[in-house]
């Protein structure tokens, strides 16, 4: 496995308005790896992702891409050019746009020609055949799960090197989660690095190589996913009594 | 020196601004002329004339407020009416309430004066005094039962004069085949004009203020509408209309309450019509029309009434105005029972070679009435 560092955040502090949410977070994403981020509600997982994609500004701390420090105030546009794509919490589809236009928007920042984009779109349709069926329908009228597919497909359309997905399995049928996990693993083998926030801890840890556990704005554990899956403390806290 | 203050609420900005500015010229000329001669003589004491202007932005309710403010805040002694029949009527409620004499210098519709008000006077004769002579002349030129089309702006004065026109025409045997109104602020008249054209009338009569009529004239040409006679009221008297309509102004007929070519010998401050025109041209480098002259004569009439009353007491001045029977550069002035002048014979004129030419009455006639408007 290639172990060059792709994206790294050090001592990150960030928040909204008067409140601070992240209190000094360190996180390293390696090239070619799937990293998962788990933690209770409100821990700050989504906020951390927003920091990594430039939606939320760092209040202090540093962001490094392939070892080079990024200037403060990096915007989503500039990070997207580097290859960082973010599938946000709540999907945030363009409700009145068709599925196909939503996908095209994913490729907005790319300087690729039409055929390349067409080819990538076909790939998305192979991963999510349901999207192909619904390609002319407005994003806002899709069913919950279809929206999730469209959002992930849109993220893929930017041909990212690092894809960050918030709430991966939210609202998806078990079959689809299965298929999605397989697809992501396939994409990963082709070189895509992933950061995944996932409530279903078992799925998260089974999917990823490395995992971080977050609690109230701090990283409390991190390590190999397989190891964490066996850690009784983790099981107790995030799998509930039944699994302990 | 003591001053006597006159309030002049005018639409200095907005749609009616061009005409308001004319009136301001008229008032200013009178004030200047009067002050040059030492001011108004009130019982042996000379008072300087001061005019307080305020702009009501072509917005009638503001005209009412403005008039009231001039009385209560600016402490004016007398007022000129607001511009046009609508606003003058609205503002007259204030002057009546406060008992201040006011002379409307641009309101001719009888509906303004039939409210039973005591303090309101007007320098324009009723609208029928324009439409009757017009109809008389045209009658001699067109075969009986000729078709007339009337198009009027939906506004007090234009509607009122359109009604008079309809009456004048019908009573002289014309056949009124089209009589409609257009909304204020209409920019495209093509639908109405297409209907006019379809009727193929011999006489087209259109009323409105200057901007409406310039537009109507252009769009008539666009639709290739022609007629034996085209009459427009009230704009052709203005140089601005002739300039804007260009060739289209030719042979447009109209009537107005005054014309610089008239020859009256008055006892007012300006003396004769000729003198007035000369004084005006000296100050403004242009020839006055009725809008300016009416403003000047309103001032001159106030001066005559005040001097006759020998006091600034509003009620006494009002009585003096009501009793006035004088000759002025504007013509003979007597106010009828409603306060509106009834002593004038308004001239009928036609634009010929870019100039307004009087065709009636006989004593002032400058040229013959020409047929055909292309």
């Amino acid at each position: 496995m290639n172990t060059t560092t792709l994206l790294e955040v050090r001592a990150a502090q960030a928040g909204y308005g008067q409140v601070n949410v992240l209190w000094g977070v360190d996180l390293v994403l390696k090239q070619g790896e799937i990293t998962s981020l788990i933690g209770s509600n409100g821990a700050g997982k989504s906020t951390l992702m927003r920091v990594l994609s430039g939606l939320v500004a760092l209040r202090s701390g540093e962001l490094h891409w392939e070892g080079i420090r990024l200037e403060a105030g990096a915007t989503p546009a500039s990070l997207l050019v580097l290859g960082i794509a973010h599938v946000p919490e709540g999907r945030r589809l363009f409700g009145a746009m068709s599925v196909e236009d939503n996908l095209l928007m994913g490729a907005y920042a790319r300087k690729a020609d039409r055929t390349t984009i067409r080819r990538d779109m076909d790939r998305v349709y192979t991963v999510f055949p349901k999207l192909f069926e619904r390609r002319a329908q407005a994003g806002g009228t899709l069913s919950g799960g279809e929206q999730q597919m469209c959002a992930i497909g849109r993220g893929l359309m930017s041909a990212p090197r690092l894809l960050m997905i918030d709430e991966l399995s939210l609202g998806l049928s078990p079959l689809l989660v299965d298929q999605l996990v397989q697809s992501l693993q396939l994409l990963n083998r082709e070189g895509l690095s992933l950061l995944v926030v996932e409530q279903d801890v078992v799925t998260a840890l089974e999917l990823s190589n490395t995992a971080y556990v977050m609690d109230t704005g701090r990283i409390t554990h991190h390590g190999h996913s397989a190891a964490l899956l066996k850690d009784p403390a983790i099981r107790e806290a995030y799998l509930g009594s039944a699994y302990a | 020196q003591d001053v006597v203050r006159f309030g002049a609420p005018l639409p200095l900005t907005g749609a009616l601004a061009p005409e308001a500015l004319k009136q301001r010229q008229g008032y200013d000329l009178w004030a200047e002329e009067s002050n040059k001669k030492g001011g108004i003589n009130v019982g042996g004491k000379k008072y300087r004339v001061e005019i307080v202007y305020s702009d009501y932005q072509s917005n009638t309710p503001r005209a009412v407020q403005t008039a009231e403010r001039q009385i209560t805040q600016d402490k004016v002694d007398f007022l000129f009416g607001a511009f046009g029949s609508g606003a003058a009527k609205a503002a007259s409620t204030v002057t009546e309430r406060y008992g201040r004499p006011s002379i409307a210098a641009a309101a001719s519709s009888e509906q303004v004066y039939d409210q039973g008000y005591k303090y309101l006077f007007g320098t324009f004769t009723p609208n029928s005094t324009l439409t009757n002579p017009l109809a008389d002349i045209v009658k001699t030129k067109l075969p009986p039962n000729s078709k007339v089309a009337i198009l009027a702006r939906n506004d007090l004065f234009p509607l009122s004069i359109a009604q008079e026109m309809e009456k004048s025409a019908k009573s002289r045997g014309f056949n009124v085949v089209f009589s409609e109104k257009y909304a204020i602020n209409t920019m495209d008249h093509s639908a109405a004009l297409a209907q006019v054209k379809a009727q193929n009338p011999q006489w087209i009569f259109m009323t409105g203020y200057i901007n409406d009529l310039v537009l109507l004239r252009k769009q008539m040409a666009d639709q290739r509408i022609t007629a034996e006679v085209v009459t427009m009221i009230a704009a052709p008297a203005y140089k601005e209309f002739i300039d804007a309509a260009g060739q289209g102004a030719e042979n447009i007929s109209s009537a107005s309450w005054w014309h610089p070519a008239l020859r009256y010998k008055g006892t007012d401050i300006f003396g004769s019509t000729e003198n007035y025109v000369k004084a005006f041209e000296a100050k403004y480098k242009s020839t006055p029309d009725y809008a300016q002259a009416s403003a000047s004569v309103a001032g001159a009439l106030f001066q005559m009434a005040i001097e006759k009353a020998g006091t600034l007491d509003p009620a006494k001045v009002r009585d003096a105005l009501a009793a006035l029977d004088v000759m002025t550069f504007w013509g003979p002035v007597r106010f009828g029972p409603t306060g509106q002048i009834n002593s004038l014979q308004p001239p009928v004129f036609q634009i010929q070679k870019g100039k307004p030419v009087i065709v009636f009455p006989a004593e002032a006639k400058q040229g013959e009435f020409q047929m055909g408007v292309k």
Partner: protein
Amino acid sequence: MTEVLALESVSRRFGGLQALQDVSLRLHKGEVLGLIGPNGAGKTTLINVITGVHRASGGRVMFQGEDITSRKPYQAARMGLARTFQIVQPFPELNVLDNVASAALFSQSGLTVAGARKAAEGHLEFVGLGSVSDRPAASLTLAMRKRLELAKALAMKPKILFLDEVNAGLNTAEVEQAMTLIRTLAERGLTIVVIEHLMKVVVDTCSRVVVLQNGRLIADGLPHDVVRDPLVVEAYLGQKYAKLAQQFAQGEQR
């Protein structure tokens, strides 16, 4: 068992899409019905048709023997049909207490604003939001909003409660808390319809499960039977899940 709700071949089209096709279903008092099916199968649409958000393009909806097919949402709400939204819909500027109070106030007649607030407090305690009752709803985390959504539905004193993915986005521990709540409600005799993609919730809380696919009902039965139904496995669960379920069932039998 008394029948509270009956769908008689209900259909609904969206343009060219047949979202629901001849769905017939009976719901009995005290049941906890699981409604599962692939994404886009029509589950949410079915709830929308029952609660009057969408009109059925065909068929009838009977509630307690009365035809409510063309009722408006607010009328359905007042009759005792309460639902949570798949995508939570709080009143963002109202505080948590008033969110719940509003539900009590408008779904029942004869309550005053003060009375509704009083009633709301109890429901907030029940779902565990008592401590945040004066925070604006906009400031809540997702899990809290889902619980708020539940409290609102409960405040309506519903006869049937529709829960549209109340557990999505919650972590395993939080899901367990929510399941406890649902079970408590079921024990109190409330009729509940649960839409859920978490099979654990479905299997552990529902007394009966129906499966929708492409707008049609394809299975109806006890949870353990349904999850083993090959049709359901193929359309919805996938082999991996089926295996898990198998293990699970065996574990339980042992």
